[in-house]
């Protein structure tokens, strides 16, 4: 088992950051909030149950903007986040990672995302368009040179504006003296030059997006609110399945080419580990890593339905996810798994982590079983059902929250949240959830 020392150290540093807060009150508020979250992760009893609601496009709804507005207008985007956080006062706030990406997606000419105003109504959040962006017979190309695969296979397929990259030669062939001219000539065509222009636009838009995020998060930190994560990653199986092979593709790969699929998952572990840790370090070494899990889920409590069997989960999905989590934990980071779907059948398997190093956020879970199996190992997060938040009343919300707190909050090691994020959540329901948790979730 990995050592837990670095996680404890990193959480401690996060609770005592060398930040020049404007006032002692703000400093105290920040530290209280961070401490509350850190204690829950370490399986202790904080003063009360911390709140880390997954918000994203709810910010827009709360502030009265459309989803499209916050994807294009930096001022509205920032205003909506600051208003929501300062009004509702959670303990950890969600960085608005999809806001201000409209210009980025346009510069890209994105084919694998639909977003508000582009393929979707202006008041609806983005959706992903899966496809076989990596063909079944291209695993070898990916394994040989993932960067080349990205540049000449994947990007030209998902990005309308970078199509011409498919006509370049592999960068790895440009090592000798006079061959480099031939290597770059491919991009000298009219289409190639357009692609280079697109890269320029894409880089500029991405830089502005990153600056926006830094600015908003920085402002809220200086108001005493810690963001709840500082990096994002995926299970290797999901990296391959979500973005490259698509659901159908990767499901067939489990039967038709299991060995090369596993090899590709292994290769992805280190790529994702480096990416994640570099992002986290650029974000003040924030300890918590957001890991949404997609393709390893069952659909129902008894394990029926779902995207793979328990056996396939153990064979294809968990090993490389666990390896990635292990690297993160050894380096002091806290994997926060969002276990979409129903993970009740997988609880005994995912229990296998050092105590006090992970957060498991559940959706359709058997709460009693989750607390029983994981209570002494993992901080549980969730699980007020999103349909109550969008369709129910504040009374319904309070009732659901009480049930969660009674079962999952017992003894600490619990963070309050809904099962999912949605722009359809009624503001009064979110307010009810937060106020109720602050009152009922106190540990006496």
């Amino acid at each position, binding site marked *: 088992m990995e050592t837990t020392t670095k996680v404890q150290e990193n959480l401690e540093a996060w609770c005592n950051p060398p930040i020049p807060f404007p006032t002692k009150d703000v400093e105290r508020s920040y530290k209280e909030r961070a401490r509350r979250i850190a204690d829950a992760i370490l399986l202790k009893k904080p003063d009360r149950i911390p709140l880390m609601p997954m918000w994203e496009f709810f910010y827009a709804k709360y502030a009265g903007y459309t989803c499209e507005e916050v994807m294009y207008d930096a001022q509205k985007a920032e205003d909506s986040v600051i208003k929501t956080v300062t009004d509702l006062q959670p303990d950890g706030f969600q960085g608005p990672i999809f806001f201000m990406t409209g210009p980025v997606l346009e510069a890209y000419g994105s084919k694998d995302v639909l977003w508000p105003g582009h393929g979707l109504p202006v008041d609806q959040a983005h959706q992903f368009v899966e496809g076989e962006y990596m063909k079944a017979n291209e695993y070898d190309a990916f394994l040989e040179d993932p960067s080349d695969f990205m540049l000449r296979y994947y990007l030209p397929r998902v990005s309308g504006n970078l199509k011409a990259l498919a006509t370049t030669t592999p960068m790895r062939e440009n090592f000798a003296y006079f061959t480099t001219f031939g290597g770059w000539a491919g991009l000298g065509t009219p289409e190639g030059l357009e692609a280079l222009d697109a890269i320029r636009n894409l880089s500029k838009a991405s830089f502005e997006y990153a600056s926006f995020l830094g600015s908003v998060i920085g402002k809220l930190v200086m108001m005493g609110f810690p963001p709840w994560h500082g990096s994002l990653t995926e299970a290797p199986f999901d990296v391959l399945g979500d973005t490259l092979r698509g659901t159908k593709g990767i*499901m*067939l790969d489990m039967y038709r080419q299991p060995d090369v699929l596993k090899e590709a998952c292994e290769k992805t572990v280190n790529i994702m580990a480096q990416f994640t840790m570099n992002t986290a370090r650029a974000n003040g070494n924030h300890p918590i890593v957001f890991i949404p899990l997609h393709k390893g889920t069952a659909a129902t409590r008894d394990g029926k339905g779902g995207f793979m069997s328990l056996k396939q989960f153990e064979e294809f999905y968990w090993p490389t996810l666990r390896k990635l989590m292990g690297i993160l934990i050894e380096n002091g980071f806290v994997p926060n798994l969002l276990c979409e779907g129903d993970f009740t059948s997988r609880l005994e398997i995912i229990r296998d982590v050092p105590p006090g190093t992970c957060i498991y956020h559940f959706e359709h879970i058997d709460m009693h079983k989750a607390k029983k199996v994981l209570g002494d190992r993992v901080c549980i997060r969730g699980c007020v059902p999103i*349909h109550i938040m*969008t*369709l129910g009343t504040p009374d319904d919300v309070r009732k659901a929250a009480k049930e969660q707190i009674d079962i999952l909050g017992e003894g600490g090691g619990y963070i309050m949240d809904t099962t999912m994020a*949605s722009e359809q959540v009624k503001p009064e329901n979110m307010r009810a959830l937060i106020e109720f948790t602050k009152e009922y979730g106190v540990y006496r």
Partner: protein
Amino acid sequence: MAADLVYALSELKEGEALEIVRKRLDAGEDPLLILDDARRAMGIVGKRFEEGTYFIPDLIYSGEILQAISEMVKPRMTKEAAGRKAGKVVLGTVKGDIHDIGKNIVAFMLDLNGFEVYDIGIDVPPEKFVEKIRETNAPVVALSGFLTLAFDAMKATVEAIENAGLRDKVKIIIGGGNMNEDIRKYAGADAYGVDAVAAVTFAEKVVASSR
């Protein structure tokens, strides 16, 4: 020989299944008998999915193998096998939602069980559902949706069917991994299902009760 194909396909042994079909076609066997065995095998697959021993990848893989078998068999068929059609179903993912894998599996399972499926695609506005119901006189309507916005789209679709005077001519089921009784009530549907088998069971019940 016959049992071999049923076994091979239901056990998802792609290579074996296709080899058996090749041998049987070369031996001059009636293609319809081969398809019958394939259907029997898919019945086993469906049952295992219902029992929780097979999962979505198994449905998708068996669908791929069946597709390959159909393509081998089709050119050898002398006339289009009409097949017993158990009833008509209009199926689609509601407006605003583009998820389609679940819907496609429902279409596949319904077709397997002899239903004539009118799959009108994804992001389907209420009017399109109404149009298709009028055109086909289908007694079963299946609305697929995954996102929270789908709840309202499902409600709007049921209302559109009502406003068109067609509500009492159809039975409506809503489906998707997040469905439950609260959402069913909210949308005004007759039933909800969280998997493809629920859709088949519902469709069979509707058709049986109308006979």
